[in-house]
């Protein structure tokens, strides 16, 4: 494992041209992913975590979306500029993605087998001709993939339609499909949100297992701190289109640096501990059509200060923890601005 | 906590109409803006407005008002369009322009009556079928299916054939074949709305069936009904014109466009203006209603909003 990041998102900004004006969905997102690492991105609805993930594979329709600035470097290659043809060659082969609701992400009118085989065959185009699989081989590969995601009776399931499977099985199919091209990076966008807890546990275990088996790096996007905690080594916290904190899991839960992260932790009831009190974060999300200058959390922040009208950079705090809050600014600069 | 604060009390009293309906106004503004950006919808609105204006005031400004009710001036029959007779004259010397303009009002009446009657029959039946379910729905929907199982125009022709030709009978026939569409639409909509949680909520508060149907369901069905009604205005005009064309609809000298074409087609192609102008009037009006309906769908039905 080298420290050379596999994926590096740098100063990524993205806007949507909508009917009501320009919606500034993503405003300066920065994070790196080291090979073999599993990175969690957490945040509440509308924080831009899903858009960021989809942008990596160029899946956000443009227009209405528009990339304002930034780079998404995969192995040094800027995915924002390589073009559709190159992205297609990367999709599923280098970078794969699974999604939130396994029902809607599978085409209801084709069998599991048809959809799997189609994807496998599509990948053959990028392979050396002598290694290409024909349809029968692709089918075998599909069965192999289904058994590797522990889908019972894989051969029979090939002829099943999505609606005939349970939610957990569908998610397994999606995972099989995503990994069929043997990618290096898996982006999982809320993969367990639509599932029951017992199934969620199965899927999380499966992803952990496959990470080792396929030598995968994983980006896990979730609104559930628990899910992230159970799978990831490092967490990026997003709020209103910005990264507010980037820390290792241990650090994040023990020493949350950003007031938002702190609030979030206080708002989550704990299943393992008796009830004490909960406190929500007062206020609502800022209007992203006309976001406030500087820190986007300032209106809800108990520690807001004049300096917050400037955009806080990601201050390195400790142990790889970086926090975008002026509270963590070096004394000098804080005084300077105040 | 339960005591009402003074400000809140004053707020309710002081709110004027505008403030109370601020949300509605905002919504309508949004609609208007969406609509205004949609070029074809605006064209449709323009055409429909033109049509409505013509229907409203046209008959008072036509050059030969008598010609609309059937007079005979054989001496000036079949004259091509000129400065006096803008659209030429017909086979008994009536001014085609006058008749086309007056025809707008007639056409509007026909379209309104056909869609109106169809809605009056279809919407209650659809709501009853969708909400009650069970055998009531079975009966209503099967009858609807039977009516829909034969092409509408064909059935209308059979009905007019039985009742005898004439504009009233044509309208009766078209209304009779038109309502099943509304039953289908409203029934489907009611069926899906019935499972909405707010309907459950209303029931949990003790609302009765009638109240649920008319207070909670009906207002939520209006969007598709408005869209369909707008489209149907155009379709009804086409239907009435088709019957008129076959000689089963309005009868001369009633200045209905379809009936005019039905007579005028025997004067094609040499006396082209006689059928050309009523035909163009039909195309423009139907086009207007269709475009308007399309535009309305775009703003009222979020699924089709882009």
């Amino acid at each position: 494992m080298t420290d050379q990041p596999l994926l590096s998102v740098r100063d990524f900004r993205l806007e949507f041209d909508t009917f009501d004006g320009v919606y500034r969905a993503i405003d300066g997102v920065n994070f790196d992913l080291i090979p073999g690492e599993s990175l969690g991105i957490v945040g509440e609805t509308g924080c831009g975590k899903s858009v960021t993930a989809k942008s990596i594979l160029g899946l956000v329709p443009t227009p209405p979306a528009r990339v304002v600035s930034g780079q998404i470097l995969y192995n040094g290659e800027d995915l924002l500029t390589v073009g559709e043809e190159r992205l297609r060659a990367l999709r599923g082969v280098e970078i794969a993605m699974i999604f939130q609701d396994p029902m809607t992400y599978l085409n209801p009118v084709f069998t599991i087998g048809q959809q799997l085989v189609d994807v496998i065959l599509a990948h053959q185009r990028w392979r050396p001709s002598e290694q290409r699989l024909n349809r029968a081989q692709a089918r075998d590969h599909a069965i192999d993939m289904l058994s590797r995601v522990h889908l019972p009776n894989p051969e029979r399931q090939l002829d099943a339609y999505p609606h005939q499977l349970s939610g957990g099985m569908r998610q397994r199919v999606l995972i099989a499909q995503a990994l069929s091209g043997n990618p290096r990076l898996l982006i999982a966008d809320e993969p367990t949100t639509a599932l029951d807890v017992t199934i969620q546990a199965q899927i999380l275990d499966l992803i952990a297992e496959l990470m080792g088996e396929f030598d995968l790096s994983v980006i896990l996007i979730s609104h559930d701190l628990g899910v992230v905690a159970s799978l990831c080594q490092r967490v990026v916290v997003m709020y209103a289109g910005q990264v507010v904190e980037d820390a290792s899991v241990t650090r994040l839960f023990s020493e949350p640096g950003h007031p938002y992260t702190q609030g979030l932790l206080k708002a989550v009831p704990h299943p393992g501990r008796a009830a004490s009190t909960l406190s929500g974060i007062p206020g609502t999300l800022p209007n992203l059509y006309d976001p406030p200058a500087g820190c986007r959390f300032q209106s809800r922040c108990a520690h807001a200060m004049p300096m917050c009208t400037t955009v806080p950079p990601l201050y390195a705090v400790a142990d790889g923890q970086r926090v975008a809050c002026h509270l963590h600014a070096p004394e000098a600069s804080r005084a300077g601005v105040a | 906590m339960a005591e009402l604060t003074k400000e809140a009390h004053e707020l309710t009293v002081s709110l004027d109409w505008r403030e109370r309906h601020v949300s509605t106004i905002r919504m309508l503004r949004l609609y208007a803006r969406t609509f205004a950006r949609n070029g074809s919808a605006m064209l449709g609105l323009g055409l429909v407005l033109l049509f409505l204006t013509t229907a409203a005031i046209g008959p008072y400004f036509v050059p030969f008002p008598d010609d609309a009710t059937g007079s005979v001036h054989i001496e000036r029959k079949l004259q091509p369009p000129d400065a006096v007779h803008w659209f030429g004259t017909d086979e008994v010397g009536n001014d085609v322009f006058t008749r086309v303009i007056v025809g707008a009002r007639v056409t509007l009446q026909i379209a309104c009556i056909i869609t109106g009657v169809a809605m009056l029959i279809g919407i209650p039946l659809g709501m009853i079928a969708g909400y009650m379910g069970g055998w009531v729905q079975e009966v209503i929907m099967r009858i609807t299916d039977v009516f829909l199982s034969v092409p509408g125009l064909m059935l209308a022709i059979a009905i007019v054939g039985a009742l005898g030709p004439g504009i009233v009978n044509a309208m009766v026939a078209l209304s009779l074949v038109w309502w099943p569409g509304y039953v289908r639409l409203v029934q489907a909509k009611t069926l899906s709305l019935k499972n909405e949680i707010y309907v459950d909520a209303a029931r949990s508060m003790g609302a009765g069936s009638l109240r649920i149907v008319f207070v909670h369901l009906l207002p939520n069905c209006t969007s598709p009904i408005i869209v369909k009604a707008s489209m149907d205005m155009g379709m009804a005009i086409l239907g009435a014109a088709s019957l008129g064309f076959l000689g089963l609809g309005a009868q001369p000298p009633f200045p209905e466009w379809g009936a005019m074409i039905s007579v005028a087609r025997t004067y094609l192609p040499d006396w082209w203006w006689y059928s050309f102008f009523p035909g163009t009037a039909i195309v423009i009006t139907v086009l207007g209603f269709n475009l308007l309906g399309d535009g309305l769908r775009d703003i009222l039905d979020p699924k089709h909003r882009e």
Partner: protein
Amino acid sequence: MIRFTFKRLMLMVLMLLGLLAITFTISHIVPADPAALAAGPDANVEMIERYRVEYGLDRPLAEQFLVYLGKLLSGDWGKSIHTTRPVWDDLVTYFPNTVELVVFSIAIAVLFGIPLGIVAAVNQNRPIDHVIRVLTVTGVAMPMFWLGLMAQLFFALKLGWFPLGGRIEMMTDPPQAITHLLLVDALLNGHFGTFVDALHHMVLPAVALCFPALASIIRVNRAEMLETLKQDYIVNARAQGLSTFRIVAVYALRNAMLPTMAMIGLRFGWMLGGTVLIETVFDWPGIGLYAVQAAISSDFEPIMGATIVLGFFFMLTNLLIDMIYGTLDPRVREQV
């Protein structure tokens, strides 16, 4: 699937009965006296009564209906009071012509409508999309008979590219009737010239007839393609690296075809109704023309015959469409 078909066929029988009841009622509220009609202009009272008894018009309505049903089942579809010809013979003569026209027409509408819908959707808001949209909007707004008349005037009368009307060239002897479908019979008999001639006669009426349907199909297919292309599974298909052509032409099209099929079914009904107008304009010896003439002479057995046949045909096509639906969408297949 067999079970499904069987059940639908049973339902169809019920619907046909309902249809019969409705049309029978309608056609018996005729203000004129059908017996007097039949007896002809010079008939006296005695002759009229003879007709009344001969056609069973002296019996109560319900009984007449039952008698009619009984006769229908025994293959006797009654005879035209107006022409005295057996209705069944007329239906055999006229109906196949309508079938050919309508099938040819819907084929044009589908073959052109679906690709054009896709082209418009993929090029949303580009010039080609606008051109197609203008075409579709005017297509729906245009009265079919008007379009037919104009096409006839321009292409037949002015340019002379097509015949004015009719089914085949009048000097051509029709091929021996095997299926009663002229095109098929021509091919079966090896009369290739007749086949081409019949096809040539069919172009104008079929195009005029298909235009509104074509417009609707384009419109629905375009809207559904746009809708489908926004679906999650399309995003997933892209994320897995499928090619755009495959996504559009296979993955999205099949889903978009479901509502399009429904529209095709609906429009097919309109088309069957529209044949009345088109057959009138183009002198097409079909069932629409036959029915219209029966309707205006209050000749109720032909009206009923035509209505049953048209209704039956429409129901059959709907069944076919439902079956296609079933093959396209597994969920529908299972629900039944």
